[in-house]
């Protein structure tokens, strides 16, 4: 078998080096394991094929790994996996590099220098686990068990981190979600009683605002929207940037940032004043049409045009076209909604237009979650610790925060303040807030305020770089994981699972094992007294033939009802109807219907910074992948030519970009693909960790510049409230 790598050495050489216990090499990478043989002439006959599930983003697409001599040669899509419509994207194809990349963490590392100095030494797993147990004990005794915080990414084993946290006794669990989608979740939950899944394949008309589905892929939405458009569906995109989605759309409007609510309220105004809304649906299934009619009266298209920079006649036409296509028409709910301080209310305005179109639970509209039938696994009874504080550290700081999700932003502020109680321990798994959370300086300060930080990942992320103890995780292709339920509207209600396709490299371990081992050391072994197989058996207990289907096809489908799920049922809201007027909000002193406030002017030479993904990077977890880094080796600051000219900035010039949170140096991309008042840069560059050798020293870090405002209802990070100044760097 050939062993080739641009920065690598042979397997034999690796084994020699691995035995040498060189601590310095641990951070810098440079040592690689076996390599796929493609460079030496492709896959030879005799390979085996094994199902797995992609982990390059949150979508969890089923895939087939082609394995030869114990090495993954290639990843292919699973044609039987309908949620991705048999697709595996560029990131998915590059997953091989996650396993064999030179920068894999290989063994546990203990910090020996100052935090952030990058000096670590290799220790054994036993030493690492003993150290963790000792710190869980010490911090729990000194600060209560809530003094240890947990954060886990979107991963099929994250459930075990939450299980450990609950058994240990900490309420302080966080996820990436409060930097992503919580505001949208809240808005749709508080309108429809649940978060919808758009039925893209059968839709006839989509207004997509603040989403970029042809670059930031969501399955099956991205593929289904393309098919729907081939079948004649119309796509209208509102985005301050000319994204790939905008490029593929029938119509693109470069909406002024933070004015989407004005557009939606004007659409509602037209639908109501011109009697275009679904009166039968609204009368039977919604609550508050009288209040809404009165509420949207002043929000005319002429008024909205002033706000959004979209002509009134276009807004009026779009409203009429939406109504003509309804109920197979929608305002796309979107996913990442961590934009503004009133993002929940902005997304409520999206939800309300959908309700007026009567598209809920109907073909081409918004569908409810289908029955999958996957069980919760092995139940447990976590103890209760009487000496614990009453609630989470961030409790009560946002009106309707989800108690199991919390708010990274508000939790970070509370840790820094030390109130209402100290939090001094932090366990992170498969997540990297140093790059994904706005205001990196505050994240650094929070980590510096901790007594013990543990990060488990596959590479030395910036968060790992700041940790006291770094644990090498197995990649998704080396792991056995629990089953995972998936929703895909017309595509599926299905289950996927992972078994290892190759043996794990180095000393990497799954987080389940780590939690089990530490629990055992803390006398909590009873909460992890099972195997993954036993856990999966319990999950699948209600699904006859479930395991057989998973082994045969890589996916289990439940042919459950798709449309009309709510016939004869209540909506899970306070009024038990779809709430145009939110009665709970009214009781709580919140605006029961979205009230528009114009964005504050940013001033001369100040621009709003927006975030966004493209199809080859996922926040910060994939930039260092050598295959993907070839497509996006660095990032640039997108700036409009008009503004660039004023600032004497030419394409490719070095510029500084500065906000009240921080400053970065970056090359400019002068382009008409953004508005004059809006700048953009890709996430995940400007890293601190030299352990990310493919991107270290490249580009700038958006998290250093983004300011950390928050959505007042959910605590969701409000990243687009960032005003920046840009200037040409002195020669």
């Amino acid at each position, binding site marked *: 078998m050939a062993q080739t790598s641009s920065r690598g050495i042979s397997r034999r050489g690796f084994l020699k080096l691995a035995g040498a216990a060189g601590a310095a090499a641990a951070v810098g990478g440079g040592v690689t394991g076996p390599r796929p043989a493609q460079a030496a002439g492709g896959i030879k006959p005799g390979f085996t094929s094994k199902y797995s599930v992609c982990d390059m983003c949150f979508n969890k697409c089923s895939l087939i790994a082609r394995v030869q001599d114990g090495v993954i040669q290639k990843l292919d899509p699973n044609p039987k996996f309908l949620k991705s419509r048999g697709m595996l994207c560029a990131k998915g194809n590059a997953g091989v590099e996650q396993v064999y990349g030179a920068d894999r963490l290989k063994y546990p590392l203990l910090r020996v220098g100052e935090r952030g100095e990058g000096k670590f030494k290799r220790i054994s797993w036993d030493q690492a686990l003993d150290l963790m147990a000792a710190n869980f004990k010490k911090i729990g005794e000194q600060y209560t068990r809530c003094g240890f915080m947990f954060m886990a990414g979107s991963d099929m084993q994250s459930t075990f981190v939450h299980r450990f946290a609950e058994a240990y006794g900490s309420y302080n669990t966080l996820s990436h979600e409060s930097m992503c989608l919580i505001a949208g979740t809240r808005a749709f939950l508080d309108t429809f*009683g649940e978060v919808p899944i758009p039925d893209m394949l059968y839709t006839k008309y989509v207004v997509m605002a603040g989403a970029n589905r042809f670059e930031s892929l969501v399955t099956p939405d991205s593929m289904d929207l393309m098919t729907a458009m081939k079948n004649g569906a119309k796509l209208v995109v509102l985005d301050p940037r000319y994204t790939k989605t905008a490029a593929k759309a029938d119509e693109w409007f470069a909406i002024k940032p933070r004015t989407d609510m004005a557009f939606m309220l004007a659409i509602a105004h037209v639908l109501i004043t011109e009697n275009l809304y679904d009166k039968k649906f609204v009368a039977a299934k919604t609550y508050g049409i009288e209040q809404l009619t009165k509420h949207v009266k002043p929000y005319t298209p002429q008024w909205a045009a002033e706000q959004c920079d979209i002509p009134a006649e276009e807004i009026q036409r779009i409203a009429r076209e939406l109504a003509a296509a309804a109920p197979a028409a929608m305002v796309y709910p979107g996913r990442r909604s961590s934009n503004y301080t009133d993002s929940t209310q902005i997304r409520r305005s999206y939800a309300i237009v959908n309700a007026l179109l009567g598209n809920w639970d109907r073909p081409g509209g918004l569908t409810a979650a289908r029955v999958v039938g996957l069980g919760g696994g092995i139940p447990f009874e976590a103890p*209760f610790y009487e000496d614990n504080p009453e609630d989470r550290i961030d409790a009560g700081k946002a009106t309707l925060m989800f*108690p199991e999700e919390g708010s990274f932003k508000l939790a970070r502020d509370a840790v820094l303040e030390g109130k209402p109680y100290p939090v001094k321990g932090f366990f992170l798994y498969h997540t990297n807030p140093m790059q994904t959370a706005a205001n990196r300086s505050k994240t650094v300060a929070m980590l510096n305020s901790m007594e013990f930080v543990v990060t488990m990942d596959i590479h030395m992320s910036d968060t790992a770089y700041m940790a006291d103890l770094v644990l090498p995780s197995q990649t998704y292709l080396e792991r056995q994981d629990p089953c995972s339920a998936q929703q895909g509207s017309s595509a599926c209600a299905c289950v996927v699972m992972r078994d290892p396709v190759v043996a794990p490299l180095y000393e990497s371990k799954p987080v389940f094992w780590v939690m089990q081992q530490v629990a055992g050391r803390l006398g909590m072994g009873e909460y992890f007294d099972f195997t993954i197989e036993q856990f999966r058996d319990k999950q699948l207990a209600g699904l006859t033939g479930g395991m057989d289907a998973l082994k045969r096809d890589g996916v289990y489908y439940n042919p459950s009802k798709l449309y009309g799920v709510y016939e004869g049922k209540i909506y*899970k809201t306070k009024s038990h109807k779809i709430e145009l007027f939110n009665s709970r909000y009214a009781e709580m002193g919140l605006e029961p219907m979205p009230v528009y406030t114009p964005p504050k002017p940013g001033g001369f030479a100040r621009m709003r910074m927006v975030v966004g993904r493209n199809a080859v990077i996922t926040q910060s977890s994939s930039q260092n992948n050598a295959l993907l880094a070839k497509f996006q080796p660095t990032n640039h600051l997108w700036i409009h030519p008009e503004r660039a000219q004023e600032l004497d900035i030419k394409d490719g010039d070095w510029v500084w970009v500065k906000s009240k949170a921080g400053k970065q140096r970056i090359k400019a991309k002068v382009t008409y693909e953004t508005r004059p008042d809006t700048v953009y840069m890709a996430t995940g560059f400007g890293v601190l960790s030299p352990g990310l050798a493919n991107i270290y020293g490249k580009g700038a870090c958006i998290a250093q510049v983004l300011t950390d405002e928050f959505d007042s209802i959910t605590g969701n990070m409000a990243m687009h409230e960032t005003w920046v100044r840009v200037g040409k760097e002195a020669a």
Partner: protein
Amino acid sequence: MLKRTIVVLLVLSFIGAGLSLALASGGKGNSRKGKYLYRKNCRVCHVQNGKAKELSPISKTQAQWKTTFAAQDKLPCAAEWAKLKEKDITDIYAYLWGHAKDSPSPAKCK
């Protein structure tokens, strides 16, 4: 026997008085402790393939939980309820009512 019945009735009426206050205050107990107590005391039977119907907070609306708790002495497991302290019932109510299917934060898992 009569003496025991009287004690049970007295306890029930005591719980009832406390509970009416709890219900009126909209679930002001400790929801996190309630989750623990619910798992310990109720889920023993109210579990998949258990002695009683499988239950979780999202099995009922907030109004239905309120009705259930108000009429606890009529439930088949009333005797089990009688063993609980007033504060414990208030906490269990805070958990079930607070994460009911029409609550702002419905429980995620069954």
